[in-house]
């Protein structure tokens, strides 16, 4: 374990060449993780580990195979490299296969401020107390908070190294932390839970534990007494957490892999108006200290800022080297290695840019409608855009919250929903690599009693 990641990746690359690979790349991830869950003021689980994984991709001309291992000791890796090359002999020639073109690689990387060394100064007890304080704040908010699924603090310090047979080598290190609180509120007739969380790379990016606990409690309490409402067609307001799931669908729909498979409702529409003119979506790998930022992607393509939708017009799909060749586009630096080692498309900081409205202005603009705080189920067909998901929310009348609603679905089609985004909030909330502000959509069908 005293070898540097550069040495290990170089040994793998050398071995791959020796076994007959015409090209190869290898990525190693090392995560030093700490997580604690506190429930009703006591530690429930405490987990700490250093995990490693090595992901290899080899090419034999235009044939490819991949492998991954958690055991990076020399003999295991050498055997796996040989087996991977053998496996590549059995796959098919694919004219789009291969490493990215050498011209894309760079030697100098931007400093994206991904690492906060001050996390290391926190003792385990101080880390545990972050979770304790968060949950305590939730309980102290209101006596309706009678139970809890706990509050968790999770921290990871990660190192990533990537090398390939063209001589590219890059590595970076970053920290991420998240503080989550899931309180349960109870009344005579119902029990409800909700959550709030904050995440960041730096300590200064995290909301205070007391703030998180209080928000989470407020979210759970306002769901008490939720009822079904009759089937109707009304405007829908998505809070930033539920709007984030819409952005996730759009991310999937603009992924190069969905486009070449023609399994996206946004296929063949570059240059066309696909959303209302208030909608601008960007994938920005260069966002300083962003949760999804990195100096280069998992194939070594430098970090980029890619406009996806500009004022309603579709501009780009997201590409890795493979999908870019297939679709005759440029790689956008969105190559992402799944745990299996296979390269797919991943978001960096994929977000809908903030609009001009404060969230309460948006709520006040609704005569009757639903403010959605949670969506469940998988009722989204990416091929057609058909959309139908279970929703929990708060009924709005004359611009004011009236009562909570549950056991309903909201349905429509993503094409129509995007074009009917009438108001965009100024409250983009990053808790991961996909983010959105409050959004209002003109009309959708609510199916209920």
């Amino acid at each position, binding site marked *: 374990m005293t070898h540097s990641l550069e040495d290990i990746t170089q040994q793998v690359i050398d071995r791959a060449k020796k076994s007959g690979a015409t090209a190869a790349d290898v990525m190693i991830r090392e995560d030093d993780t700490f997580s604690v869950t506190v429930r009703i003021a006591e530690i429930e689980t*405490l987990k700490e580990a250093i995990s490693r994984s090595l992901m290899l991709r080899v090419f034999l001309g235009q044939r490819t*195979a991949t*492998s991954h291992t958690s055991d990076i000791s020399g003999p295991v890796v050498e055997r796996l490299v040989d087996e991977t090359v053998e496996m590549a002999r059995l796959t098919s020639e694919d004219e789009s296969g291969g490493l990215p073109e050498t011209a894309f690689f760079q030697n100098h990387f931007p400093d994206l401020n991904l690492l906060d060394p001050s996390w290391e100064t926190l003792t385990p007890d101080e880390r545990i107390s972050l979770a304790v304080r968060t949950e305590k704040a939730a309980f102290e908010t209101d006596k309706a908070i009678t139970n809890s699924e706990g509050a968790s603090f999770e921290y990871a310090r990660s190192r990533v190294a990537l090398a390939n047979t063209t001589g590219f080598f890059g590595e970076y290190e970053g920290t991420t932390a998240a503080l989550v609180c899931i309180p349960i509120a109870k009344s005579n007739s119902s029990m409800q839970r909700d959550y709030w969380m904050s995440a960041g790379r730096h300590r200064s990016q995290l909301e205070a534990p007391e703030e998180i606990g209080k928000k989470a409690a407020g979210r759970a309490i306002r769901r008490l007494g*939720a009822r079904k409402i009759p089937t109707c067609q009304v405007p829908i307001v998505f809070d930033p957490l539920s709007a984030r799931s819409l952005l996730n669908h759009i991310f999937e729909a603009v992924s190069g892999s969905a486009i070449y*498979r023609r399994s996206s409702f946004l296929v063949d529409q570059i240059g066309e108006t696909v959303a209302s003119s208030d909608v601008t979506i960007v994938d920005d790998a260069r966002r300083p200290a962003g949760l999804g930022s990195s100096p280069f992607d998992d194939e070594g393509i430098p970090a980029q800022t890619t406009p996806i939708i500009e004022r309603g017009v579709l501009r780009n799909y997201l590409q890795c080297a493979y999908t870019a060749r297939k679709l005759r586009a440029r790689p956008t630096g969105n190559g992402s290695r799944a745990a299996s080692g296979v390269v797919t498309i991943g978001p960096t900081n994929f977000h809908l840019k903030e609009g001009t409205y404060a969230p309460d202005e948006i709520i006040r603009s609704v005569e009757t409608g639903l403010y959605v705080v949670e969506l*469940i189920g998988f009722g989204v067909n990416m091929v057609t855009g058909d959309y139908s998901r279970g929703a929990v929310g708060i009924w709005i009348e004359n611009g004011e919250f009236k009562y909570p609603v549950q056991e309903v679905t909201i349905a429509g089609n993503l094409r129509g929903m995007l074009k009917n985004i009438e108001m965009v909030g100024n409250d983009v909330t990053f808790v991961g690599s996909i983010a959105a502000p409050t959004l209002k959509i003109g009309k959708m069908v609510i199916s*209920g009693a």
Partner: protein
Amino acid sequence: MALSNSIFFEKHGVTTRDLEGYLSEALSRGGDYADLYFEYRINHSIVLEEQIIKSATKGVSLGAGVRVISGEKTGYAYSDDLNRQNILKAARTAAFIAHSSAVGGSLQIPTPLNQERNLYPVPAFPAELEIAAKIRLLQLSNEAARAYDPRIKQVQASYVDETKHILIATSDGRAAWDLQPLVRLNVMCIAEENGQRQSGYQGGGGRRALDVFTGDLDPGAIARESARQAILQLRAIDAPAGPMEVVLGPGWPGILLHEAIGHGLEADFNRKKTSAFAGLVGQKVGSELCTVVDDGTIPFRRGSLNMDDEGNPTHQTVLIEKGVLQGYLQDRLSSKLMKAPLTGNGRRQSYDHIPLPRMTNTFMMSGDSAPEDIIKSVTKGLYAVHFGGGQVDITSGKFVFTASEAYLIENGQITAPVKGATLIGDGPTVLRQVTAVGNDLKLDQGVGICGKEGQTIPVSVGLPTIKIREITVGGTEK
């Protein structure tokens, strides 16, 4: 199944003395209980797309997890290799949790359980089989799907397998190992006509070798079923909206049971009283027609296990008998704290995860109605026979799932296919609304993946044809 025959003893040099040493380090700060979980897993994944074999992947994971329990507290750490110093370090890290506990647990020397039962005797494990034979399955699927109808424009077929060795040793004196095969074949088709695109999906597999892929699970049969669904969707109409009578077909629609009932009956949620089912044992939660079982002992099934991931044998557990709630699915921690018997449902994704109470194969027992009579009894409703996926909110009890193949029932007849109907309901009351149960129990074909707290595991579901008095259908047509 002597420990010395396990790969960890044979190939990696682990000894009984090592196990004792790790466990005693884990209890060094006074925990009540400790266990070790060794895992060596090999998996393969091969994808066919656009008529070619696009990727082949092999994965190797090796590691050991150490858990220490002190009261309700769990400490966990793991090592990414079987190096002695690293496992000892993990044991010390996990032990940290117990620093405030006054009395420590005692260590009994782990002795092997006498395991006679093997639910998955296979001629060869997936890791040992030729890649070429696995590729052949994908090629047969691709040919069959495209031959089914010229409107099938895309076929994506994938094959995945897993060969998993595990060894468990506990401070209360048990040790056991198991070797678990798992294979799965999936076929996704896209049909195109007049600019409209629709998809279909079918898969199958189990804890077997490639011999599972015959009959209904023949690659051609799986591919044709996937193609049939995609073609059918081309003429599907928009789903209705509002409450209505719903008939669920046999087999995979058992996902409703898994989501709406099963998760709510996992012991951890009930011990913490965060489940809508908490405190309801002995009470009526469903109509008398409903008997629901979780059975981890069915040979070759995807959710079956000789032992769970805490080393306890799996059981057939009756969760609901004739509508009355009998008990919960237990892991060791919850069973101790709730003073309830173990059910062999402690499962984990891998050595880097803490075990949780989880389902195995979960289904409703057959009733006596003929399926065709159930359909005939409906004047206006929905007949749902295939599902995409589902999700539940354990606390409020609300569940949602999406039918990928469903039809209108009008005057006792199955009529037009509808697209993407989402069903939303309430777990604790949905079984009370069951008004007919068919005599045709069927388990799914072996594709279920269940997620909880970030851990995914293989499961099976099953159902006979059932009729539900009223469920809300979330379509766009009023």
